[in-house]
Structure formats: structure tokens, C-alpha cells
């Protein structure tokens, strides 16, 4: 389970000491510590907000699935991406993949932008 602390006044934080290992294990330690110390409080009204109609039902979707993710388990990502009918690319990396491997994230975005089918990573 992610080390989310009990809510304070309706907002959540991650345990600073456990942030790097759970959120950003493959990010350079100094950067991961900065992320832990500069956390934005996450509102319960955001986490618990309800979707009306999911856009993935009508828009083509791509999904970068992180296999070493300690925040959203890979199996949960697999289930959600399959339900969305997304073109899935699996990559070995943490939840902070957009920080640790920006080139892989940008590559998938560019694939979607060009309207091409995704190539397996």
C-alpha cells in the first residue's frame, strides 16, 4: 500500500521518508527528496471525484504501464487500460516514470499525436 498519511483537514500527504521508494524509486535521490519535500496536498474531493462519462469510451487512447509501480499496482493499470481499450506499452519503471524516463513518455505521446498504432517497447 502507498504510504499515504491520514487526511488532515481533507488533504492527503505521502510519508516523506517513504516517498522516494514508493513514488520515485528510479529517480535521482536528490530529485526524489525534493519531490517529497515539495509535495502538493491532494484533496479528498479530488481523489473521490466522480466521472460522468469516460472520454476513453469515445476517444482513441494510449497507456504507458509502469511495471515497478508502488502507487498504482501494475495489475490495476492493466485492468484499467484494457477496459479503456487503450493501446498499451509496458515499461520497467516507477510511478514517476515521467521524471525518470521522459524520453519513453514523450515517445508514446508522439505516437498518439501522429495517429499511429503504438509499437511495442
Amino acid at each position, binding site marked *: 500500500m502507498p504510504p499515504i498519511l491520514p487526511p488532515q483537514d481533507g488533504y*492527503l*500527504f*505521502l510519508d516523506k521518508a517513504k*516517498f522516494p521508494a514508493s*513514488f520515485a524509486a528510479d529517480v535521482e535521490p536528490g530529485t526524489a527528496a525534493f*519531490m517529497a519535500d*515539495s*509535495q*502538493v*496536498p*491532494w*484533496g479528498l*474531493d*479530488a*481523489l*473521490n*471525484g*466522480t*466521472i*460522468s*462519462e*469516460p*472520454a*476513453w*469510451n*469515445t*476517444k*482513441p*487512447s*494510449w*497507456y*504507458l*504501464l*509502469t511495471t515497478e*509501480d508502488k*502507487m*498504482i499496482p501494475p495489475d490495476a*493499470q492493466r485492468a*484499467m*487500460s484494457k*477496459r*479503456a481499450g*487503450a493501446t498499451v506499452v509496458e515499461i520497467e519503471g516507477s*510511478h*514517476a*516514470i*515521467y*521524471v525518470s524516463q*521522459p*524520453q519513453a*513518455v*514523450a515517445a*508514446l*505521446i*508522439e505516437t*498518439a*499525436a*501522429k*495517429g499511429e498504432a503504438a509499437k511495442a517497447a
Partner: protein
Amino acid sequence: MRHILGRAIVLSVMDASATHDQRNSFSFRLSKQNFVDTSTWEQIIRILEESSIQALESANPDWLGRNFSHQYRINERYGKDYQLSNFTNRRESQMKDRIAVKNIVLVHGGFVDGSGWEGVYKILKRDGYTVAIVQNPTISLADDVAVTRRTIANQDGPVILVGHSYGGAVITEAGNDPKVARLVYVAAFAPDRASQCLR
């Protein structure tokens, strides 16, 4: 003529209607939709102007994509071989999926802000994309969706909407905006209808 018009439709994915007028020539109106970017639209207009299609009227461009339409008439000898079926929704939809999109909007998740996108941003900018990063406050989903849609509205054409983590929930809702062409989820929630991140 069929080729020219076919190409225009391929490029534009526009909403078009066609009618036969009293003189039995063929007229049609092209409307710029939100998901057609300005350069694509200008290309279509140029193709039509270079052909022998007669322009009946043309309005001034509206950069937001509204009230921007041209009406053309094709003489009978051209009009006869032109089929209304070229305008079917199915074909428009297929073409829409193939159009290259240049606007990228990035939505961050919980516990972080938009600065984490810097590495992705630099690569996309280097490769010629227009990139906007949403600083969604993550106080409520409804508010984050509203903030994201404001950024989408500021783009000059169709948008690729990208969400990380909780940002996936934001794009799942905000992605219903007609300017959003496609979605990219990055280790993200993609909730179902009437659902939340954690079910």
C-alpha cells in the same frame, strides 16, 4: 474534382452539408470545426481556390473556430460525379484518427505539480510540438477538470490530452471536450462511468 474534394475531406474532417440548388449546380458549405487546426483549414481553402470551384461567399476566420465557413458551388458538369456519401460520418471519423495533432496538454497527478513534466516538455518542444502544462490544484476533481478545459480552450486546434496518475481521472472527464482528439495515460487512473479513482 473528386480527388480534390476527397483530399479536402481527408485533411479537414469537417462537417459539411451539400444541396442541389435551383440551377441544378451543386453547392456545399464547409465549416471549420474546433478540431480542425488553422493551418489545415488554410490548406483546404487553398486547394479549393486553386481548383475551379466557385466561391459564393467566405467569412472572416474566427480563431476559436466558430462562424468560420465558406460556401462553394460546383458547376453541374463537376457536381454530377460528386457523391454525398463522401461526407458520411464513418469516413470522417476514420480520417480524424489519422490526422497529425500538434498541441499537447499535460496534466499532473496527486502530491506533485506540473514542474515534473519538464523533461517530457523539452523533448516535445524540440520535436516541434506546442506544449501546455496544466497546474491543476488537485483540490477537487470538478475544479481540476475546469482548469484543464480552460487550457484546452486556449489551443489553436485539436489536442492530445495526457494525464499522469490522478491526472488520468482528470483527462477521463475533461477529454470529453470536442477539441480533444486522443488520450494518453501515463501510470494513470482511468475510471469508469459514475466511478472514482479507487472505484
